[in-house]
Structure formats: C-alpha cells, structure tokens
C-alpha cells in the first residue's frame, strides 16, 4: 500500500462527453462480466432438458427442479409404485415424480455449504487477527531484521500455494488434519496471513503514533490503547483485508479437492459433483452456484460501507 495521499484531486472537472463515454464503458464492462453470472442464475431455474437444449434457450418456463435436485437425492421408481404413494407432498415431490423418481433423502449441499461458511469465516478471522497483531508489531516496534522478516512473509506468496500441495497433503495425512475443518482453516489462514500482514501494516503505518501515546499517558496500557484507539481507526483496513481473505477462502478449489472429500468438504468441490441422470445436472449446479454467491456478496456489501468511510481524515495536523 502506498501512503495514499488525500489531496490527489484532479483540478479540471472532466467534460460532459468524456464522462458519458466513461460511464458507457463502465456499464458495458459490467454487463459483459455479468453475462456468465446471469446465465448461471437462469440455468438454476431451467428444467434439465431446457438447460442443455440447442440453440440455448433464453426464454423458458421457470422450474423449481434445479433447486429441488440440489437439496435432495432421488431414486428412480416404476410408475406403478409412484401411483400407490398417494398425493405428492409439496412442489419438489411433484417435480420429482414427473420424472418417475421419488425423493430418497436430503443431499449433502447444506452440510457442504456450512463447511464453507465455517472454514471461510474461521480462516478469515484468524488471518486478520494474526495479521493485525503482527502488522502492529512491525509498524510500532523495533524488530531485529524486520525487513527480512517481512520479505520472508511475503515470499510465501511468491509461488502458487498449490505448488506445495503434495508436501501439505502428506503432512496433513500424518497429522490427522486431512478432511477436517480445522485443517482447512489453518491452511487458508497460512495462505492469507501474509497478505493480511502486508495490507494491514500499510494501514497501521498511516495511523499516527500520537494516538496511542496520548492514550498511554492517559492511563491506558498499550494493549488497551491498541483496542480502544488503533483498532477502530484501522477498521477500514481490516474490512478491506477481511474481504480479500474471505474471497480467497470462499472460492478456493484446488486444496479443497485435494484435502477434503467427506466430512470437511467445502461447497466448491461439491457443486460440480452433482450428477443427474445421464450427465451433469446443470440446473442443480446453477442453483448451487447462485446460492453459493450470496454470502460473499452480502459480506462484501456490508463491509463496503466501512471501506468507503475514511475515518482518520484530518484529525492530525500535518
């Protein structure tokens, strides 16, 4: 992070035309990047035949089948057997019977989704907490070899984490961390913590020491001053860091495939394994992906408000 200057306003107000062109380009870019998402969202509401029809259907009759299939497992039965069952219970039952199947139980989507939540929030919390404490230490104390340590911390991100997948796989197997939520939390924390330290150090460097010094003179310990004065002012940085950590942990696929298969499996490796009759069940995948996007969007939108609030603005005379 550069020491962002607060005075970098452009002097000349852009003209109306250039504003309109810029606005058009931004909207165009947004629309183009939204197309895949829109397609996934639409697919979630299609029937399996509609989802693979060619040419692709843009207009279709919405169906709950994708969402039903996402949350349930089904078995094929004879028409006679289904006849005997009596009236269908609820929308999903009906949709399923139309395909000559009955609901056998609930799918693994909900537990996988909960795993994702636990692991992503757990590792984000850990990475940001560890990050904010070490960033504070690097920012405020004379640490021997501080620059080398910081470089070392960053260097852990200089190759793709998956490059060390095999050693981690072996290590985890020995330690009994394979396929455990704890193992995944530790792994994602380890990957995110270097980013967290660097980002947060930049933010904490910007907070004048006088704030803590004033608090310490006023009778607070350094730890108190840290919680009462530094943390609130680092809120912006903490929010930004948490978003980055969260997005990584939420979307991570490769390690999740390698290290989790049952118990601790997260949603990303689970969603593509949703197999329907005779191939992928695309509506269920679409539905699963749509729901999977909700938490990260909510998280980002909630913290975004915080991001935009420049709270340390102007209380220190420079």
């Amino acid at each position, binding site marked *: 992070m550069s020491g962002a200057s607060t005075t970098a306003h452009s002097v000349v107000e852009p003209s109306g035309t250039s504003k309109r062109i810029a606005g058009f380009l931004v909207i165009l870019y947004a629309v183009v990047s939204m197309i895949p998402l829109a397609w996934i969202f639409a697919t979630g509401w299609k029937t399996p035949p509609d989802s693979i029809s060619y040419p692709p259907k843009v207009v279709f009759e919405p169906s709950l089948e994708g969402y039903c299939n996402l949350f349930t497992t089904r078995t094929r039965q004879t028409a006679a057997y289904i006849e005997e069952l009596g009236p269908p219970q609820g929308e999903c039952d009906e949709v399923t019977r139309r395909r000559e199947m009955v609901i056998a139980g609930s799918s693994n989507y909900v537990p996988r989704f909960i795993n994702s939540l636990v692991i992503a929030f757990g590792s984000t919390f850990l990475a940001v907490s560890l990050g904010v404490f070490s960033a504070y230490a690097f920012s405020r104390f004379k640490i021997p070899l501080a620059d080398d340590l910081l470089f070392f911390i960053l260097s852990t991100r200089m190759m793709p984490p998956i490059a060390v997948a095999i050693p981690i796989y072996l290590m985890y197997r020995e330690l009994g961390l394979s396929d455990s939520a704890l193992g995944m939390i530790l792994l994602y924390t380890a990957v995110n913590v270097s980013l967290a330290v660097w980002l947060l150090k930049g933010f904490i460097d910007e907070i*004048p020491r*006088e*704030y803590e*010094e*004033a*608090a*310490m*003179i*006023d*009778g*607070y*310990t350094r730890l*108190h001053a840290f919680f*009462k*004065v530094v943390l*609130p*002012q680092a*809120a912006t940085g903490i929010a930004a860091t948490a978003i980055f950590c969260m997005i990584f942990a939420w979307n991570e696929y490769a390690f999740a495939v390698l290290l989790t298969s049952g118990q601790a499996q997260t949603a990303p490796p689970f969603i593509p394994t949703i197999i329907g009759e005779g191939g992928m069940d695309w509506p269920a995948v679409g539905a699963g992906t749509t729901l999977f996007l909700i938490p990260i969007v909510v998280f980002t939108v909630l913290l975004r408000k915080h991001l935009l609030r420049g*709270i*340390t*603005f*102007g*209380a*220190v*005379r*420079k």
Partner: protein
Amino acid sequence: MAEVRLESVTKRFGDVVAVDGIDLTVADGEFVVLLGPTGAGKTTTLRLIAGLESPNVGRVFLNGRDAARLSPAERDVAFVFQQYSLYPHLSVFENLAFPLRSPARRLDEATIKATVERVAAMLRIEQKLQNRATRLSGGEMQRVAIGRALVRSPSIYLMDEPLSSLDAKLRSDMRLELQHIQRDLGATMLYVTHDQIEAMTMATRIGVLDRGRLVQIGTPREIYESPRNIYVATRLGMPSINLLPTEALAGLPLPPGVTTVGARTEHVVVERESGGQSGQVAARVEWIEHLGDQNHLHLALGEHRLVTLVNPDMRLAVGDELGLSLRSPLYFDAAGERIAA
C-alpha cells in the same frame, strides 16, 4: 503535585542528538517555559519526561524517584501534543472523557459528565461536545486537546505549543485561563512555545534550548536583561535585538574585548540634532512603519541596519539625519558570550 528533575539527559535518534546533556529541575508548582527554534529538542524533552522516549544517557526523576521503570501511564502526567491528535473516531465529548474512562481511574458516569462539561465550558467548546472530532476548526481541536489534559489533575502538565493555532484574541484569553488554572491547582507545568509573549507572561522560569542543549534558564527578567550569549539575547524582544559590530559604533565608549553590541529598543536613544556631539553616531532614517501607538524606525548606520521603536510624536521622515547613542546596551565578545559592562 510534583517535581521533575532531568540529570544530564541525552537522547539520540541515529546521528541526530535531539537532547544533549540537559540538566533541568522544575520545582513543584513551577511554570517553566522552553524556548528554542524548530528542531531544538523541545518536544523530545517533553517526551522523555512523559516516558514516551527513554534517554540514552542520564536519568529522569519524578518526585525524586527515578522514572526509568515507570510506564507513561504510571507517571501521572498530562500531555498536550503539538499535533493535537484527537481521536477521530470519537465525539468531542468522548475525546474529553477518554482519560477519565481509563482502567486506572474508573469514575462513574455522572462524575465524568460533570467534569467534561466543566472543562468544555472553560474552553468554550460546550456547543461542540456532540461533534465528531474531525468536524472542528484547528483552534477548536486545539482547545479539545488542552481539555483532555485539564479533565484530569495530574502531577505534571506537559504542553507542546498548545495555543499555536488560536487567533490573537482567543490566545490571550486562553493564556490567562491557563495561568489561572496553573496557579489555582498549584500545578507543575512544562510548556513549549515559540511565542515570546506567552513565555514572558506565563513563565516562572524560561529555559532556552539550542540544538539540544539548555543554554540558559532563569526568570523571564533574567533571560531578557542578562542573556548569557547572543543566541539567548535574540530569543526575546520585539523588535528583536539589534546586533552591531563595534566598527558601526566608532566614537561610542565600549569596554575592552567587545566585538558585538546588542542594542534593544530601550537601549537606543535617538535625537534630532545630528552632528558632532561626543557619544553619538550619525544615523539616517530609512523607513518608518506605523503600528498605531508606536512607530518602527529603521535606521542606517553606514552600511549597518538597526530597528527601534519611537514615539509617533517625534515627527520623522525618511532621509532625516539623527544622532544615536546607546544606554547600557549588552556587550558580547568574539565567541558570542556576554561581557559584563
């Protein structure tokens, strides 16, 4: 209340010697002002006393106790920072209440409220209590910062240019207010300023710092009337002291060894009749600035310049020739040290 003693304290930052072997005692209830140009080590001296820096050499005593092992919180000092650093995430009220809410104190809410309101009224910021600390003018922020020191009754107040961004009227009001507070509480105060009037009117003693060294300390009168050297002499006086080499004053009686004469405005006597009187040198009026009750008179003595105050009644015009004499000025030797007349 308390006494502060610095014993040959030195503080270095890398190659910079910010404070260089300072010995200083601030007695209980005393108001000591530190004067010195920028970078002289004033802030560093206060920070050493507050425990925000630890000396490389020497010791700091608070109430006769070596403070080396005391944390800032344990030293019972209040510090008004030069950069006033209010907490931007808190309201003015919460900023003022912050020291009272510290774990070391644990006051009840009613006491806190009463104290904050009393101090806010004193500093005339009571209408701003609900404002965010960032929504204040510079002068208001500065008053809140002073307020944060005044809500407590610490044994020592350390103030680093606390009035520097107030307008002239408010500054003189606050100056009186601080003096009253200090006297009423019998507080020990160490106060940094660049403002001569503050130094002269508030201080029990003034300490003059030069590149980390304490050059002289004494009552305002001593510093003004008997400065130890040229450096100290130039710190006080409006307009500032005129330093004239002896050549410019040929014809005036001077003690032996003098190379520079320091003439404050009260040492300078000008008379209209120019010409050969003994004990006078010829001066020409170069420029006159009208200040209302007095005039700044810029004089040329050959190629040297001199500024003094004259009564506007003495109707002078640019180009007038005057006779100038000196009444017990200050004499300095080649090293800049003062020679007693």
